């Protein structure tokens, strides 16, 4: 690399300086050249516990894409495969920068998402730690191989920067694609902000590679709101990295054509349907979902639980939300509390596994549950209602919903709370999206207290 190139300031596609990019190392005066992989080579492996809980952290004001880059830098990733799609493109472009710096050992651009997801499958089956990212239509194009990851018991991490799915064509925020991932057998986490994205990606690698899990993880965030906006992210020093993947501790043999018995790693032709009886496929599916269940204890251990509860004790109104909707809901809770309404927030971090028992405990005494979402179909509301059926008498409002690139004004949420409590007709949520009926006498008594 020439001296001139070394002095060049790195910028993102919008021309902004990349604040998290490392300073260009000084040239070795003796040799006149520097090792572009020098900083990566000097990284020290630390335990996940040290990385997540003990290492000192410093805050930076960076975009979600830069957070993903910094997470991958510290995650000892062996391989990443890229294919651009808005709003994900910048993320994998930055992973390409990491490849140039030696933090990622192998990296290339695939021909499209089906090929990318298939390559990630091959990499993971061969025993390396793999990362990729996609969005919206890219998610759906890659869905067939993505859905096969779990059945192949492939630990890998894919970041989904959710956006509208065609048609009509749009690139705006909308998280409908999560609905398709919820039944894929992978673990699904939903990041609210830049900090979540950084933490969830790193922790996803460790959880996915646990022997009794051995499953892929989808780390989702709402495109643009998180990927392109800047937020504060506290990060450990980049001299640390997670331990490498130990593929020989996985629940299936790795594809190892060099070590005998090589035959073993080619066994079980899980794609040869003529070899598979119904019974084996049925228990195979049970086993994938058992792996999802087994991940709960690791999510508890590393992510402080499948959900986060704020001001829930004694709350009459609960907002249940994930992703960016949790941020809007947090402000709605604050405004409600200022008006004397006992409101609390349940932010769901893990959509798969789903925090069923936690919700049953937390929602038992609520009078009203409002579930704001950034999609039309309300996949979260369906899961919440199913989980707490019979465990709560609350009225459940499946909304408000915004989609197609809309933002969600906080007033949309507070209006629904008011409508839910008073029985006033909602301007945004249809009657068909309201489940359960609160006791009118209890509501009247509640209204006197405000």
């Amino acid at each position, binding site marked *: 690399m020439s001296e001139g190139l070394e002095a060049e300031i790195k910028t993102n596609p919008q021309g902004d300086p990349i604040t998290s990019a490392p300073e260009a190392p000084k040239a070795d005066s003796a040799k006149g050249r520097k090792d572009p992989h020098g900083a990566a080579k000097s990284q020290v492996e630390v335990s996940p516990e040290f990385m997540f809980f003990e290492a000192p952290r410093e805050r930076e004001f960076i975009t979600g894409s830069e957070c993903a880059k910094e997470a991958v830098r510290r995650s000892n990733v062996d391989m990443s495969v890229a294919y651009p799609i808005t709003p994900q493109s910048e993320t994998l472009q930055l992973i390409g920068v990491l490849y140039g710096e030696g933090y990622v050992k192998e990296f290339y651009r695939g021909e499209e998402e089906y090929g990318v997801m298939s390559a990630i499958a091959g990499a993971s089956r061969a025993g390396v730690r793999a990362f990729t990212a996609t969005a919206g239509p890219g998610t759906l194009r890659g869905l067939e191989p993505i859905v096969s990851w779990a059945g192949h018991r492939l630990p890998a991490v894919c970041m989904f920067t959710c956006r509208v799915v065609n048609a009509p064509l749009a690139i705006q925020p909308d998280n409908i694609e999560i609905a398709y991932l919820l039944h894929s057998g992978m673990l699904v986490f939903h990041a609210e902000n830049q900090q979540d994205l950084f933490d969830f990606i790193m922790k996803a690698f460790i959880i996915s590679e646990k022997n*009794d899990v051995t499953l892929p993880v989808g780390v989702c965030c709402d495109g643009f709101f998180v990927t392109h906006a800047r937020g504060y992210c506290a990060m450990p020093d980049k001299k640390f990295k997670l331990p490498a993947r*130990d593929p*020989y501790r996985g629940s299936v043999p790795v594809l190892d054509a060099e070590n*005998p*018995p090589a035959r*073993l790693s080619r066994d079980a032709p899980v794609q040869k349907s003529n070899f598979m009886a119904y*019974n084996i496929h049925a228990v195979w599916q*049970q086993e994938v979902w*058992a792996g999802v269940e*087994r991940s709960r204890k690791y999510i508890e251990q590393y992510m402080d639980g499948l959900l986060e509860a704020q001001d829930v004790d004694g709350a009459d109104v609960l907002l249940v939300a994930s992703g960016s909707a949790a941020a809007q809901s947090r402000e709605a809770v604050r405004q409600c509390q200022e008006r004397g309404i006992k409101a609390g927030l349940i932010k769901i971090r893990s959509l798969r596994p789903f925090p069923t028992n936690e919700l049953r405990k937390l929602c038992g005494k609520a009078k009203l549950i409002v579930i704001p979402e950034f999609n039309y179909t309300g996949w979260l509301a369906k899961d919440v209602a199913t989980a707490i059926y019979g465990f709560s008498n609350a009225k459940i409002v499946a909304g408000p919903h915004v989609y197609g690139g809309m933002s969600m004004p906080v007033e949309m949420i507070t209006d629904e709370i008011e409508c839910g409590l008073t029985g006033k007709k909602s301007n945004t949520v249809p009657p068909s999206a309201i489940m359960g009926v609160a006791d009118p006498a209890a509501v009247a008594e509640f209204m006197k207290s405000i």
Partner: protein
Amino acid sequence: MELTKELEDAIVAPGPQGFHPPSAAELGVLTPDKGHGLKFGHVVAEELAMEAMARTMLTRKNATIFPGPLVLWNWNEHAADKARAVLELAAQLPEVLVIPMPDYRPKYPKVEPEEVINPNHPNLTIWGNKIEACIFIGVHCHYANLTLKMIRAGTNCWTSAICAEQGHEDAMFTVRDSDAAKIRRVVAVFKRVREEMGIKLPENGENVRFTGLQSRVHDGITHTNPLNFGPSVDPESGNAAAFGHKAENMKSEG
């Protein structure tokens, strides 16, 4: 009486459980923490799980050890040592059968149940040999879990799993973190339980019963001494250790 009560309380009860029973995980049973095992789906001290395995293997018909690839192939010195420990375990069980699961490839057009067991249709080997108790050891966890689910659904076989990792909730009895040292602890428990039950081993040490097929390939003899079999660790013989597999890859404890 005690066993009757335990069976009434069993979450992961012996089969046949029916056409398509829920998995143990669906029943709320998950793998035990370190130092613990599972007995019928309940977390118990691992010594109790070992004792339950021993009593089952010593009393039910056609008890069988199913060794898997992690102890059948000569991956490294630790795998060879584990294999020796498995043979020591077999040496504690009169009339025990040993049928391998050497790989995970479906055996079509027809499995030979006296030769192998396979995770894609393990019920055929169980039925074919009328096996009512078994131990899986050295099987990769995913394939062990498939096998255990299918056996519980369709057979009356009581299953045990001695696992090098976190254990198996779909087995009736399981212990975890089983490296060679832990397997030898299991051997000691089996010996104690056998002696408490007054069950003697044959004086010539030939306590392992060959299947019909195994007998035919061993010139018609019906029994053998398991300790006469043993893996060799010869780095020159092309074993996996010569290609970089280290014992640390498989070792879980001390």
